[in-house]
C-alpha cells in the first residue's frame, strides 16, 4: 500500500541527478537550481552546448566537471551556431548510415548576456533555419559572472556596476528589459516558454515538452541571483515566486503561436513587495515604483489579451 507521504509531489520527481554536486555556484544560486531541474528533465541522451557565463564557470573548472552528459563550452556569440552545426552533422551521419539514430536531443544553454545581447544573431539564425534544438536562456538579469554589469535583460531601475545609482538623478538602469520570449515567438517557432525554478514541476514539464518538439524551442528561465541582486541567500525561491505573483515575470507557453498562461493571476501583488527585498532596487522612490507598477500591469494586460485570442 502507498504511504501517505508518497503522494507529495516533490517525491514523484526522479531522484536521478544529472548535474553533479561540487559545482562552484554562489551560495543560494537560482541558476544552479534551474540547471539541476533542466538536467533532471533532459536525462543523459543529450548534447549540451553552453555559452560563456556563470554556468560554464561554475560547472567546469578543469580538470573537473559537473556534467554527466556530453557537454561542450563555446563562446558567448556562437552557441546557436555550434549547436546547429552539431545537429546538422548528426542528421547527415545518420542519413549516410554512419551512426545509428539514438534520438539525441540538442540543447543550448546561455545566460541573458549570451542570449539577448551577444548571441542573439546566431540564435535568430538557428531559429530561422529551423534546426531541431532546445535553447534554454538562464536569465539572471545582468552579466553576473564578470561582476554584475548591465545587459539588455536588466530591468528598469536596477543597480548594476555599469548602471550605478547617482546622488541626484540616476536611478541605475534606465531602459526596460528586452522581451526576449516575444522575439523568439516572432520567429514563428513551434515552442516558446518562460519558467522559474520556484515552480520546479512546471519548469521540468516545459523542458520536456520543448525537447520533444520537432524544430526550434526556446525557454527563458528566471534565475534568481542573490549575489548580483543583493539579497539574502535563503529567499531565492520566495523571490522567484514573488516575481511571478507580481507579474514581473509571468509564466506562459506559446505552442505553435497559441498563448497559454501557466499561472493565471486575476490580481497581481503590489510590485513593492518584490522590489523591496532586493538591494539592487533599494534606492527607488515611490514615483519610480509607481512607474514600474504601471508598466508591469500594462504588459500583463497585453499578455492576457494574447492568451484570449
Amino acid at each position: 500500500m502507498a504511504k501517505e507521504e508518497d503522494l507529495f509531489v516533490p517525491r514523484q520527481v526522479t531522484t536521478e541527478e544529472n548535474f553533479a554536486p561540487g559545482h562552484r555556484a554562489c551560495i543560494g544560486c537560482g541558476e544552479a537550481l534551474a540547471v539541476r531541474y533542466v538536467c533532471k528533465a533532459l536525462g543523459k541522451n543529450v548534447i549540451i552546448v553552453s555559452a560563456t557565463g556563470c554556468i560554464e564557470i561554475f560547472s567546469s573548472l578543469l580538470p573537473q566537471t559537473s556534467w554527466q552528459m556530453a557537454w561542450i563550452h563555446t563562446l558567448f556569440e556562437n552557441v546557436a551556431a555550434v549547436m546547429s552545426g552539431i545537429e546538422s552533422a548528426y542528421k547527415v551521419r545518420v542519413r549516410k548510415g554512419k551512426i545509428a539514430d539514438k534520438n539525441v536531443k540538442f540543447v543550448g544553454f546561455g545566460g541573458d548576456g549570451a542570449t539577448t545581447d551577444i548571441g542573439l544573431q546566431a540564435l535568430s539564425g538557428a531559429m530561422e533555419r529551423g534546426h531541431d534544438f532546445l535553447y534554454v536562456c538562464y536569465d539572471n538579469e545582468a552579466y553576473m559572472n564578470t561582476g554584475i554589469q548591465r545587459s539588455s535583460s536588466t530591468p528598469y531601475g536596477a543597480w548594476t556596476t555599469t548602471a550605478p545609482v547617482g546622488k541626484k538623478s540616476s536611478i541605475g538602469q534606465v531602459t526596460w528589459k528586452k522581451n526576449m520570449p516575444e522575439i523568439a515567438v516572432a520567429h514563428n517557432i513551434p515552442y516558446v516558454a518562460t519558467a522559474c525554478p520556484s515552480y520546479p514541476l512546471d519548469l521540468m514539464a516545459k523542458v520536456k515538452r520543448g525537447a520533444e518538439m520537432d524544430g526550434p524551442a526556446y525557454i527563458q528561465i528566471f534565475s534568481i541571483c542573490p549575489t548580483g541582486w543583493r539579497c539574502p541567500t535563503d529567499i531565492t525561491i520566495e523571490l522567484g515566486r514573488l516575481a511571478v505573483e507580481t507579474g514581473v515575470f509571468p509564466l506562459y507557453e506559446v505552442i505553435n503561436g497559441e498563448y497559454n498562461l501557466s499561472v493565471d493571476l486575476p490580481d497581481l501583488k503590489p510590485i513593492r513587495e518584490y522590489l523591496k527585498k532586493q538591494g539592487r532596487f533599494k534606492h527607488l522612490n515611490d514615483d519610480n515604483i509607481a512607474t514600474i507598477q504601471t508598466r508591469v500591469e500594462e504588459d500583463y494586460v497585453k499578455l492576457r489579451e494574447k492568451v484570449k485570442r
Partner: protein
Amino acid sequence: MGGEGLGWKDLEIGFVVTEPGNASSYKTGDWRSERPIRDNERCIKCGLCYIYCPEACIHEDEEGHFEADLYYCKGCGICAHECPRNVIGMVEEKEE
C-alpha cells in the same frame, strides 16, 4: 582546486574531461557559515527541501526523512526558509 600539481601537458587534448560528473569529489561544504539542523518530530516528509536544494545535496534516509550532505551543503538556508513545518533551522558553524 582539485587539480593540484597538474600542468596543461597532463590534460587531455582539447581539455576534454573523460570522467563525467567528477566535480562531485570537490568539497563545497567548507564554504558554509551556517549549517541546517532538523527536528524530525514535526517533519511530514513532503520533500520540498529536497527539490529546492541548489546543490542537490539533500537525500532521503531509510525512514523517509531528508538529510543534507554536509560535504556539499553551502548553507544557503533555502531548505530552512521553504520548509512548511519549520523543521529545519540554521545554526552558526563553529571552528572545531
